[in-house]
């Protein structure tokens, strides 16, 4: 029974990590649109290329942070959460005995 509970818990941690990584989809689409718009701006004003590129890099990095949050949650769910949850599970089983 404990093995089954452990298996379910590990599986759910994996599913949770996968769901957390969905957060990476939005920033990718947003970054693509932002850079495409910046390209048009550079095409209209080539002399502002340096400024536009600098602002664009910063903007893309800010957008990407959202994806990184998801990645960090995923990593924590894979590497940290199973240890914590299995400890809680063992403690509960011992308390019930």
């Amino acid at each position, binding site marked *: 029974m404990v093995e089954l509970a452990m298996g379910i818990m590990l599986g759910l941690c994996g599913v949770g990590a996968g769901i957390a990584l969905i957060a990476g989809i939005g920033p*990718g689409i947003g970054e*693509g649109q932002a*850079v*495409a718009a910046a390209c048009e701006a550079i095409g209209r004003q080539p002399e502002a290329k340096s400024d536009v590129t*600098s602002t664009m*890099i910063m903007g*893309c990095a800010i957008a990407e942070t959202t*994806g990184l949050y998801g*990645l960090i949650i995923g990593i924590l769910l894979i590497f940290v959460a199973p240890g914590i949850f299995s400890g809680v599970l063992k403690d509960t089983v011992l308390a019930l005995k």
Partner: protein
Amino acid sequence: MAKLDPTVRKETEYIAVWVIALSLLMEAVFLLIGKWTPAVLWGNLAGAAAAVGNYLLLGITVAKAASGPADKVALRVRSSMTARMLGTAAVCALAIGLFHTDVYATVIPLLFPRVGIAFRPLVDRKRGKTEAPSEGSDLLD
């Protein structure tokens, strides 16, 4: 090897300075709370390298997209982001899973570039204040 765009170099240097400073601060915090081990240091190094590398590759992609043809730019940036995200995840997973680095010390540096960007307006304002008198003095001369 292609020459790095000066704007990308400047921005990456700015972020790298912030990542190094915040990494030192994080090491100090780990020391203070008595949780410092060599695994923390290696994790910090892996995370910081992944963060700066990710930012550098982002800059290169954006600079290339800005100087290249406008069609398919969105697709190129999107695929670059996917590749960079997978690379970052692979570096962190390898460091934690294979080299047994500290998990928190590995993932926290990934957020340091965001802190540097948040302080960017302050730094720019300070730079503007120091540069303004010299421009003004030129006019007065």
